[in-house]
């Protein structure tokens, strides 16, 4: 028990050290470049590299006189983007798993589809985003038209499905052949071999894909918002603050800080669920 | 035995892992003479692999001293007195058989021609002529282990340390490898320390068998093996062979091998 508290304390100490190190690097770099007047690779001033305390401080300033703090807006925006990302993650992970299961089951699909699954990721998704977001606006399913933010989720899903498909194939195939034969000796159906053996064997692979996918879904949600004129999420604020960057650079940095935290939060959430669900020998993250 | 003849002397070796953790070795005293073939045998957790690593200066003892050829174990390592063979072949996947065998020679500054000549000699010694261009994955487990033995012998070390080298092989292959090892040992006349948990293997190969017991890891008895040299297939059917096997087995049981609860061996 004592040692557990000890390691927790050590972790917090390392965290503080890393944060202090980053702060020192940032401010030290600023100071050196400003005092020597170096302009390579770019000139350093409070527009290009605002003080870190100004960036954090910007979160706790009202955006205009008499209005709530920026942090308040950021929280709402982060939740909005998180919703898009979460729905995108669910769609992408489901599609990715089903596709992976089909590919793992039918070898001919591996050769037929897998090259295109890889190629799909070379399509610059941001370029597609406006087309997807505008295009899906005209789609309605049995009289139900998806909301604007759901179209952003589609982009998040597009980035999410790839790692899940790849690792589902690997994971389902990783089941020990001897264990498969054992199941067959019980005259188990393919369906029960799948659920009782292959899926559990695939779990570690699936979760390492989910960790990559969690990040990808946040990236997809943020860049999906950029061309879609959706103002409620972090992407909308990035566009907004980008236009005022020369005046208030801290604000754009602050949104990016929040986006970074959201990405890390999604990642840690998957790590947490993995700890609860999968009991495999301890291994490295990702 | 006169001290001058001893290749290895271990005096009062103890090893504890972690703070107040497992005592892997306690008060080990051992002398190994030149040209001897010593087996260390005992149940899991008796510290036989740890003792081997302490002798090879791969693990520092908590207390006590190892002398190898009259030098400290560290100096002996720096002088490249050790050839080591592990349970798995530990070949480098990215090197061919010839280049795996030549690895220590490269590090020790032999030139290309010397290396090529030595590799050919060793390939014949372990009967792998013609396999020099193969990669490790193209060989069977037994062949890989022979490559790793050739690699260990390449620079003619004074002392060969072998950590269950045939533990992962099937019984037939293991017996064949035993014969080959004895043939090589007779040819090059080096000193071998051999870790095993097979009683028959220990008796068949060794000039002396060192029996160890766990918790704390210690030497409970040392049995000289007076079977005739060279040993052959007939040796395995010699009544004396069976007597010695029984002696080793009884020594193991007397040392408390029976009340061992299975636990993973501590190797750091």
């Amino acid at each position, binding site marked *: 028990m004592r040692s557990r508290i000890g390691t927790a304390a050590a972790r917090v100490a390392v965290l503080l050290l890393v944060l202090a190190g980053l702060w020192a690097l940032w401010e030290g770099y600023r100071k050196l470049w400003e005092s020597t007047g170096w302009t390579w690779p770019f000139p350093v001033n409070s527009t290009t590299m605002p003080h870190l305390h100004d960036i954090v401080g910007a979160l706790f300033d009202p955006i205009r006189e008499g209005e709530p703090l920026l942090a308040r807006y950021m929280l709402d925006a982060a939740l909005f983007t998180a919703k898009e990302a979460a729905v995108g993650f669910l769609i992408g992970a489901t599609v990715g798993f089903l596709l992976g299961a089909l590919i793992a089951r039918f070898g*001919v699909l591996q050769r037929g589809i897998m090259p295109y699954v890889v190629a799909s990721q070379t399509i*610059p998704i941001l370029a597609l985003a406006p087309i997807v977001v505008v295009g899906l606006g005209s789609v309605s399913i049995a009289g139900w038209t998806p909301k604007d933010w759901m179209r952003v989720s589609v982009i998040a899903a597009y980035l999410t499905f790839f790692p899940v498909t790849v690792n589902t194939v690997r994971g389902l195939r990783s089941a020990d052949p001897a264990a498969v034969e054992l199941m067959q000796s019980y005259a188990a159906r393919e369906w029960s071999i799948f659920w009782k053996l292959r899926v559990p064997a695939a779990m570690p692979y699936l979760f390492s894909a989910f960790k990559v996918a969690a*990040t990808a879904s946040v990236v997809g949600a943020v*860049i999906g918002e950029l061309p879609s004129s959706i103002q409620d999420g972090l992407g909308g604020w990035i566009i907004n603050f*980008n236009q005022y*960057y020369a005046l208030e650079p801290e604000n754009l940095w602050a*949104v990016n800080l929040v986006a970074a935290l959201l990405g890390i939060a999604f990642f840690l959430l998957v790590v947490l669920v993995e700890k609860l669900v999968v009991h495999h020998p301890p291994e490295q993250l990702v | 035995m006169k001290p001058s003849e001893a290749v290895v002397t271990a005096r009062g070796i103890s090893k504890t892992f972690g703070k107040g953790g497992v005592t892997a070795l306690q008060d080990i005293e051992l002398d190994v003479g030149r040209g001897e073939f010593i087996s260390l045998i005992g149940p899991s957790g008796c510290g036989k692999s740890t003792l081997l690593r302490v002798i090879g200066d791969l693990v520092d003892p908590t207390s006590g001293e190892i002398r190898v050829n009259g030098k400290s174990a560290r100096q002996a390592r720096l002088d490249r007195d050790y050839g080591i063979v592990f349970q798995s072949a530990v070949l480098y996947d990215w090197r061919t058989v010839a280049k795996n065998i030549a690895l220590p020679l490269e590090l020790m500054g032999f030139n290309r021609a010397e290396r090529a000549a030595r590799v050919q000699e060793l390939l014949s010694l372990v009967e792998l002529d013609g396999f020099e261009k193969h990669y490790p994955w193209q060989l069977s487990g037994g062949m890989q282990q022979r490559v790793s033995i050739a690699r260990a012998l390449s620079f003619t070390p004074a002392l060969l340390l072998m950590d269950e080298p045939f533990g992962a092989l099937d019984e037939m292959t293991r017996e064949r490898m035993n014969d080959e090892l004895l043939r090589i040992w007779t040819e090059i006349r080096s000193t071998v320390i051999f870790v095993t948990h097979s009683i028959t293997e220990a008796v068949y190969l060794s000039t002396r068998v060192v029996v160890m017991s766990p918790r704390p890891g210690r030497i409970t008895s040392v049995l000289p093996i007076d079977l005739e040299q060279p040993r052959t297939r007939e040796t395995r059917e010699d009544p004396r062979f069976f007597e010695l096997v029984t002696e080793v087995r009884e020594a193991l049981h007397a040392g408390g091998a029976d009340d061992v609860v299975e636990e993973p061996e501590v190797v750091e």
Partner: protein
Amino acid sequence: MSTLAHPASGRRNTQRVRKWGPAAIVFGIGMALWQWVLPALGVERYLLPPLSDVLQAFWDNRSELVRGGWITFKEALGGFVLGCSLAFGFALVLARWRPLGSALMPYMIAANAVPIVAFAPITNAWFGTLSPWSKVVIAAVLCFFPVLVNTLRGLTSLRPESLELMRSYAAPQRVVFARARIPNSLPFVFSALKIASVLAMIGAVVGDYFGGSTEALGVQIVSSVSLAQYETAWAAILVASLIGIAFYAAVALAERLVVGWHPSIRAGVD
């Protein structure tokens, strides 16, 4: 000899058909769907114009598209080289001083979870919107973390006996790295480089979204969409994808040449 050669080459042809046949069939089906079925289903032109129109648009704008592709590819390649070499060097340092490496590892992994493309407007503010460096830096940062994490894993994932062997040869650290750690890391490095090649292209194109030289591919896509020239936009997307695939394939080829000894390659798994 000549009589034997025939069945062998026949078998090789059959193997080739087995290997590439399904992919070719899917390609054919995909193209047919795109050209005839989607328009027949009433998919609007602005969503996806028919294949022939996109190819026509490519042909009409070929010189701009190829020049734009080259500009964007140079940005991606610059970022790829910069990010990957920094990551490799940093990984060597972290592997040499293990406590530092293991203390920082969780933070590297967390940094990998940051949506880095969102920083594109900031690099534009650093280097100027028209400067290729703003895209190079975004592509480099995107490549940096996956390569760092994978390389560090490759450098440190040797079996303990491998290192004991080196210790028994009294090998200095320089030799341990040159003969054991670095060769061991190469399969890990290459799988990260393949990911990085795709990320570098995405980084360069997304960087263009926030403004860039009007000739760059990403800018051409954005402006074509805003002018409702969807065929041209799709042609540009096609060019970007083809460059991405070629980049990936080039890295995969280099992998085959450099780490041909690795199990995944000899088994033909990709």
